[in-house]
């Protein structure tokens, strides 16, 4: 199963956590009576909905949700500590830059540390840098 369309939409760790939570809710409603599953599916963020809906129609629903959750959890995380909260547009730019320069999809976790002033701290796969 190809989840790249969905994974491409993820930029931050918070987005990934929210999507995992939505997928868990969806998974719990698979065997529920009524329209609970389709109602929960409609609650999925519009960025992921078309691709997810397509996958769920063509494959075993439980299998799709389980594998997608695993794929999201496997994405590497980069911690970016700043003395300010960057705008979402700037975070997306950082995400694009990272994917282009690292060669893989990474999730950004922004941390606010006022004492850094104009410095930037980065942690990625056990490495640490402060500039």
């Amino acid at each position, binding site marked *: 199963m190809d989840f790249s369309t969905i994974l491409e939409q993820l930029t931050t760790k918070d987005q990934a956590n929210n999507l995992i939570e939505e997928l868990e809710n969806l998974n719990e409603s698979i065997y529920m009576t009524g329209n609970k599953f389709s109602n929960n599916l409609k609650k999925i963020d519009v960025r992921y909905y078309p691709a997810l809906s397509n996958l769920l129609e063509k494959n075993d629903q439980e299998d799709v949700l389980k594998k997608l959750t695993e794929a999201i959890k496997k994405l590497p995380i980069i911690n970016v500590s700043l003395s300010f909260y960057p705008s979402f547009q700037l975070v997306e730019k950082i995400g694009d830059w990272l994917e282009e320069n690292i060669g893989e999809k990474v999730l950004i976790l922004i941390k606010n540390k*006022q004492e850094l002033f104009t410095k930037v701290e*980065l942690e*990625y796969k056990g490495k640490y840098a402060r500039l």
Partner: protein
Amino acid sequence: MKQKSFLEGLLPHQVNQQNVLSKAHEKAQKIIERASKKANQILIQSNFFHKSLKESLRQELKSAVQKSVQTYQKELEEGIKKSLVDLEEIIKKQLKDNQEFLQNKTKEQWELIEKDLSNYKEQRKQEMDKIIRDKIGELVSDTFIKAMPESMKEKLIFEALESIKKDGFFNNS
């Protein structure tokens, strides 16, 4: 010279006998009187002796009791005196021990208080330093960082990313 009575003339031997008897009676009377007197004397002496002996025994007993009481008093006084001296020594020693214990305890407590105070001061200093640092940070953030244009923030981040990329930060090790 005494003249003889008529009877004496008639019965001279009877009169003589009568005289002898009278004399004998008189003599016997005297002997009895003397014996009685002597007996009285002996009795008086005996009573006196008895009284004297009783008094002597009383005096001896009194003396012995007095001596015994004196000895007992003396021994008691000495005993009490010795006990008081011993007690005084014990109290002195106990007081000294207590004083030393209190001094050590006070010193120990004082050192603990000083240590706690020192730790507290150091902790408060660190807390105050952190508060000051945070306040300065907030001030700088409010006045400088927040006022920084988005383009400048972007530049700051991408310069850092480019720099660590050059250093091989993203290379798989």
